């Protein structure tokens, strides 16, 4: 081992030590050090390969379609729902000019073969967690009249600027609680508390 190599070697050690120091400073609940963090929480979820690379950007941003046009159940049930295939086809039958694009071809292939698209879950909560879309949408969209992209974006990020969605918020317990602790203005239906519930059995099951 010549001098240069030894120097390099020590440099390497020093460097990795420094890097570890840097990691130790940030707080990574539930996440491996080195992954992207938002507000101290490990946030960027795994990239999910969908059967069709669905461009949220085109639909939600360019076409300005309300998120709840496709995710119908968000306003009235716990789950927001993956749109049924006939919802996609209902529109795309009327748009012949994009009919020859590969993704749309794939879409019609599923339709013609009577197979529903096997979408993969991007925001997958543990089985012991009960999250309710209804309450959040009712509170912030219908009562507080905030824009839908903002309301959905609290948890899902700026989906309107994504192609296939990817988890960009932590969606961990501490992250939920952080928001529930915030003071939200009292509204007609929610007269007693200004913040979200704090009881274990509101979210756990």
């Amino acid at each position, binding site marked *: 081992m010549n001098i240069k190599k030894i120097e390099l070697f020590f440099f390497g050690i020093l460097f990795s030590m420094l890097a570890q120091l840097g990691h130790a400073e940030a707080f990574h609940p539930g996440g491996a050090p080195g992954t992207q963090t938002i507000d101290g929480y490990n946030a960027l979820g795994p990239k999910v390969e969908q059967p069709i690379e669905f461009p949220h950007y085109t639909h939600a941003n360019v076409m300005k379609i309300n998120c709840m046009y496709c995710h119908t159940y968000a306003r009235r049930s716990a789950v927001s729902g993956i749109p049924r295939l006939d919802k996609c086809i209902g529109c795309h039958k009327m748009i012949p000019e994009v009919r020859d694009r590969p993704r749309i071809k794939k879409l019609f292939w599923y339709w013609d073969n009577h197979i529903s698209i096997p979408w993969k879950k991007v925001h997958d909560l543990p*089985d012991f967690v009960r999250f309710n879309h209804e309450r959040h949408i009712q509170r912030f969209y219908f009562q507080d009249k905030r824009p839908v992209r903002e309301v959905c974006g609290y948890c899902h990020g700026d989906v309107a600027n994504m192609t296939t969605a990817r988890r960009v918020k932590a969606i961990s317990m501490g992250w939920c609680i952080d928001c529930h602790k915030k003071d939200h203005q009292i509204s007609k239906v929610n007269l007693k508390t200004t913040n979200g519930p704090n009881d274990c059995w509101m979210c756990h099951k």
Partner: protein
Amino acid sequence: MSLNNLIKNWTSFRSRRPYLDQYKNADYKWAMVIDLDACTGCNACTTACYAENNLPVVGKERYEKGHAMHWLRIERYWGEGESVPVDMVPDRGAQFLPMMCQQCEAAPCEVVCPVGATHHSADGLNTQVYNRCVGSRYCSANCPYKVRYFNWWQYADTAWPNPLELQLNPDVSVRSKGVMEKCTFCVQRLRESMDHAKTDGRLVRDGEVTTACAQACPTSAITFGNLANPQSQVAKKWKNQQIALEKDEQKKDENLRGYRIFEEFRTYPSVVYLERVRDLEA
């Protein structure tokens, strides 16, 4: 609370009625009435509870070891003494009593949990947070009604072989080995109806939500509802029986049938039983 503190304040600790005033202005206080006169011991409630709450059927062998997982059991008693001579009505001597968590207001199980996994919710439920439970089973030892069940085996792996897992209720978690389980008045149903009610800007109406056991009972022996709403069936029945939640000693008419089990332990249970009336002449 240190031991010194506890001994010093023992009297006040014992006479404490923690939730005496909590429900004066509260929206919800879930409670139950079980009419033993109507109960035929058919076990429909138990079955419904199994189905609703993802309870595993453990099998004979484990049942014999006391590893059963029924959150609701039908207790069977035989008449004794002069009031109900067994030999007189041998086929009708048995008396049935559905026993589930009594949702005590001063729950003995709550104070002993080392990790606070069992706690009291604002609407008067004794809840169990399965993720937090470390399986000390101290709560079970302290429960006078013996309605807490310990998951001794990883039942989740064996109780629902494919495709039986499709019958599981997605609103209830499938508990793993090493946690204490119990009835929580089908809290998943309560939460759902409370959510919908909140969206509509009202309170849950009487009869809008009920527990699985009450729903399944063929004789409607079980009444479930919101005690904080004086118009509810449950509140009316409690009142008719002259039973008040915050009292441990009920002074009431001799002819009334209502009672709460082990009231003298000052657990302030939320379940009222109506005594069975027997006609020995028939």
